[in-house]
């Protein structure tokens, strides 16, 4: 706690901050309005009328369902792989000191530090060189690679806050390594892993740049969306799908926030 009294912010700062937040949120709200518009051919504003008929139309479109199913499958498997790899890496980096530790953390961060198109084209040309046909699994190979970092970041933050003496105490009380992991480490990092897993899922579910390079004929939901953006077929259906995607990604983010809010970002809790 700071001892100084609470001051109120200057008006200009309040306005600038509020304007910035509005800039971030208004475009997303607009998506919700357009999902109900009766206009089919253009992006006319204000909408000439409102209807819910497009929800039924979108519901009966098999291509939307196929894309959605593929996206969920890819995201689930990539998240599972990322959870294992990310946790192992975070445990090794945060619990021990060894030569090349910095290099390892750099290696984990690299897939998202470099532009996605580089990851994408690198994987694509490697698949071509190795003559691996594009399939469901090539998409997963790409997705898991950049999902590792999200899990890793969450796990590392939690490991750092976890006192090493807990593990020592567990060992002193006679637990072996596996028991310590099961009864001490796992309950401590559980929520962080869940949060990391959800974010990884959201990341994979939404990924399009790498996917365009690693997918063959399959369409994930973002690829379906991209097709509609480049060559619109039925705009109202795109509007509805866009709204649903916003709602679906909202939930894991809110959940991840509630799981990690205690202590991961305490005011002034930095260095």
């Amino acid at each position, binding site marked *: 706690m*700071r001892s100084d009294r609470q001051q109120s912010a200057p008006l200009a700062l309040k306005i600038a901050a509020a304007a910035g937040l509005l800039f971030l949120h208004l475009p997303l709200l607009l998506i919700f309005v357009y999902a109900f518009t009766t206009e089919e051919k253009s992006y006319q504003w204000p909408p000439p009328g409102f209807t819910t008929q497009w929800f039924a139309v979108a519901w009966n479109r098999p291509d939307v369902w196929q894309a959605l199913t593929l996206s969920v499958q890819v995201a689930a498997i990539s998240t599972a792989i990322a959870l294992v790899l990310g946790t192992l890496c975070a445990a090794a980096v945060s619990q021990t000191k060894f030569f090349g530790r910095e290099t390892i953390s750099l290696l984990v961060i690299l897939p998202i530090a470099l532009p996605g198109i580089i990851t994408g084209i690198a994987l694509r040309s490697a698949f071509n060189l190795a003559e691996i046909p594009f399939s469901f699994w090539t998409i997963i190979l790409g997705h898991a690679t950049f999902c590792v970092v999200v899990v890793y970041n969450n796990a590392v933050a939690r490991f750092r806050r976890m006192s090493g003496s807990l593990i020592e105490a567990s060992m002193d009380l006679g637990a072996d390594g596996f028991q310590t992991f099961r009864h001490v480490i796992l309950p401590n990092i559980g929520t962080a892993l869940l949060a990391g897993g959800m974010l990884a899922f959201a990341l994979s579910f*939404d990924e399009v740049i790498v996917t365009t390079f690693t997918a063959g004929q399959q369409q994930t939901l973002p690829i379906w969306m991209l097709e509609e953006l480049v060559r619109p077929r039925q705009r109202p259906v795109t509007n509805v799908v866009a709204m649903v995607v916003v709602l679906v990604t909202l939930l894991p983010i809110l959940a991840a926030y509630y799981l990690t809010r205690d202590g991961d970002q305490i005011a002034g809790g930095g260095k």
Partner: protein
Amino acid sequence: MSAEAMLRPAPAVAILPSRGGIVGALSDLFWRKPGLLLFLMLAPPVLWLGIVYLGSLLALLLQSFFSIDEFSGLINRELTLKTYGELFLPANLDIIIRTVTMAAIVTIASAIIAFPIAYYAARYARGKWKALFYLGIMLPLWSSYLVKIYAWKLILAKEGILTWLFEKLHLMWLIDAWLSIPVVGGNSLSVSATGTFIVFVYVWLPFMVLPIQAALERVPGSLIEASSDLGASPAQTFRNVLFPLALPGVVAGSIFTFSLTLGDYIIPQIIGTSRLFIGQAVYAHQGTAGNIPLAAAFTVVPIVVMGFYLWGAKRMGAFDAL
């Protein structure tokens, strides 16, 4: 051996009974040889990232030293710098300069818009407001990238909300005047460089807010008060105290905005002119043209630019603010 036997607690004392068998043996082995455990923990992620990611990256780099035969269109697998030479053709150099300039402007604009949000969130927002600000940044950050672009397609369309708003305000002449400026303008906002710029800023802005906020959280409020007690005006305090302390955060955020803009090929394709960006050039060369060597050489540009950028950022201590 005997020392170990003495150190091992008697089974009766242990709260959890010590397990025998292979699990117990493994546990003991890891305890005696922490290096082995470390190796086993690191091997899967390092192998995955090393083979799948670094392997592909190196394969790509290797291909940038190949060249394409102009007559047959086949890839010639002799190492040469000819493909890199092609990057310096005026048309390709244009693409590189356009992309780097856009990345720089987008970064500066994001920093300017992000700073007030981050500052308010770090210094004034408390309790419920703090959570609201945090979610207010996280939700747009994690919202679907394509949906965000789509939203701007709706906004910037000729029949869209922005035109409607400016017509109501009788300010249409302002947009028309702006669109008639050669480089930044175009037929409508959705096919102009200005449109591309707005969407870039919108999509990457949350990546800028979070690190700046993290940096500002570490600035004690008493420092700002001390500065004003010593007679500094708010502007002086900002320039001499606040900004230098927030700079690592700004640089950390700029790593994202800069890198993401350099490699993006979807935003300029959907909202923008027909002039290419690096990402689009890479996509075009690897796709229909089948000129993988040139595409690979193009990807080296962002890698090199980001390499210098990260090196500079590390020297400014930006990684602590990530």
